[in-house]
């Protein structure tokens, strides 16, 4: 190598090399505290604080005893941490008639959410699959009707559904509410699944048909394994939607079956006695915990599913 350099006019070569070495090299340095960074991070931190502050207030308040709450310093951390309010909110806060806390509502919500989620997703995914891949007669009409259903306000349909359920003898029962939730979830979920299945390559479906697979075999063996992200999206939509539902829960069930949200309202808005802010805060966090956990656990899959549906749909 050295010889080659010597051959090619060494002095000129050396000159360029030193000049080159003096110039910028490698990764361009970016100072942490540039105006740009300050703007970006400042805005992000501000936005995060804005949304997190209420949660902070709730958490600290729920950890204070009543005497400390009465002092009124809602931002100050608890002097003496107590889990009393949490225990009370869960097991002995009074909701109108009975005083066994949110636990009853929690289990009611679980018993409502799980079957509704499973039933609605199962039916909607099959609907979407049939609409996307098996262009049966009247498919477009069926789909249009379903989508129109998504735009009719809930309130319009409540009374007719009450009558239908009453005639079926299901009014006031958990089964009735589960049916209602499943039906209300149908338009948007079907749309979601139809778009996702339409985005999968059509030739895959054709190949499976040539291979002799029928409606159900293709659904279970080909489509399902490719659709995990969209199922996660649908699950999150349904779990959070149904868990947070208040209106349908209060209309279609009897007090002993009230979901957690309705019970929370009853605890927070009960008129007798003093307002126990710490218990109310704990109860609210407990009620919101389930959707929150669902988001945290499946957030990444959620984003992936939404992206898959959005880009290819």
């Amino acid at each position: 190598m050295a010889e080659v350099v010597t051959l090619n006019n060494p002095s000129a070569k050396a000159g360029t090399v030193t000049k080159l070495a003096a110039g910028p090299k490698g990764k361009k340095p970016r100072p942490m505290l540039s105006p740009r960074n300050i703007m970006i991070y400042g805005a992000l931190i501000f936005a995060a604080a804005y949304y997190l502050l209420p949660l902070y207030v709730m958490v600290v308040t729920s950890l204070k005893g009543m005497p400390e709450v009465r002092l009124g310093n809602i931002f100050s951390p608890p002097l003496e941490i107590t889990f009393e309010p949490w225990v009370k909110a869960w097991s002995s806060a009074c909701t109108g008639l009975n005083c066994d806390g949110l636990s009853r509502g929690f289990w009611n919500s679980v018993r409502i959410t799980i079957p509704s989620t499973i039933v609605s997703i199962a039916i909607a995914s099959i609907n979407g699959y049939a609409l996307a891949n098996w262009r049966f007669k009247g498919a477009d009409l069926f789909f249009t009707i379903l989508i129109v259903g998504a735009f009719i306000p809930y309130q319009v349909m409540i009374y007719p559904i009450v009558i239908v359920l009453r005639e079926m003898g299901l009014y006031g029962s958990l089964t009735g509410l589960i049916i209602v939730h499943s039906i209300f979830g149908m338009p948007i979920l079907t749309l979601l699944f139809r778009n996702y299945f339409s985005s999968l390559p059509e030739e895959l479906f054709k190949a499976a048909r040539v291979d002799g697979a029928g409606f159900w075999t293709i659904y279970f063996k080909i489509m399902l394994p490719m659709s995990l992200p969209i199922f996660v999206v649908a699950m999150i939509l349904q779990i959070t939607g149904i868990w947070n539902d208040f209106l349908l829960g209060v209309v279609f069930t009897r007090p002993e079956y009230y979901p957690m949200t309705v019970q929370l309202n009853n605890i927070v808005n009960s008129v007798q006695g003093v307002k126990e802010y710490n218990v109310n805060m704990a109860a609210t966090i407990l009620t919101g915990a389930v959707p929150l956990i669902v988001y945290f656990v499946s957030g990444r899959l959620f984003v992936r599913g939404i992206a898959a549906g959005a880009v290819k749909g």
Partner: protein
Amino acid sequence: MTINSVSVRDLSLSFGAVTVLETLNLDVKDGEFLVLLGSSGCGKSTLLNCIAGLLDVSEGQIFIKDKNVTWEEPKDRGIGMVFQSYALYPQMTVEGNLSFGLKVAKLPQAEIDKRVARASEILQIQPLLKRKPSELSGGQRQRVAIGRALVRDVDVFLFDEPLSNLDAKLRSELRVEIKRLHQSLKNTMIYVTHDQIEALTLADRIAVMKSGVIQQLADPMTIYNMPENLFVAGFIGSPSMNFFRGEIKDKGGRKVIEINGVDFAMDAYPARGPMEAGRKVVLGVRPEHVKVDEPGEEIHDAIVDIEEPMGADNLLWLKLAGQTISVRIAGARRYAPGRAVKLSFDMSMASVFDAVTENRV
């Protein structure tokens, strides 16, 4: 064995108001390699899907091995199909992909293993059996897709542009492999493509399609040398055939075509019928049927416009009778632009089409 392997009778298909295929007839002989060739959107895939049973026909019948399968499910038609996008099941291994159809058909495991082993040996994909499709290259994927048709042990293979997603080198490799496969299996293959090289190299017979109608069905050499109409003539060949609009004239007892005042003698042209004087025609000559600076009966003067050396060949674009004409000569013979040359035409290899009906004269 002269029975037809696949017969399509008066097939029509429309999507709503759009008619894609109209009373189409096609007979594919047993063991034949038939290529459906046509530009994009002309209905090749639609025809193939009808034969496969993936689309319900609007009108007409389909026979496979002399059995009317018009209403049969794809799996009962005795066909295997290979798709452009490979269409491998992404969640299954190569082995799973190959055996899926056999498992659905509830074949005994021993038979499944036997067929998978045979197919993977023929296609040399044994080392890949445990891999997922995402871990394969394009060429390997398409091999697996062919394997999936192979294990079905069927009489008829349907290919829908199987090579068009591959790069040029792989494409020519797999093209040879498909040809070899056909030679060893000897089953019927219907192969859709818009690539004329694929069509010419692979086919026993080519069906050239245009907007849902088969324009010509013949062996590759006939298609190339004696195109039935102007569309087929222009579609096949690269660079495409030179076309000149002109009129037939009788000059001193000889038939000539007059093009912009230049006469081209047509004595050597094997006309199908009488060439009446006064008829407006299109003369078609392939680039390799024009001789440059060689002795010939009739010499035309031309000027070299552009030269495109392509290695083995040299392509000249010249000005003649007010038109541009392409001529293919040996690669070693070079001509600089602007040079005057003498052209002579091999009219025995030319094609003449009626200017109105566009059919061969």
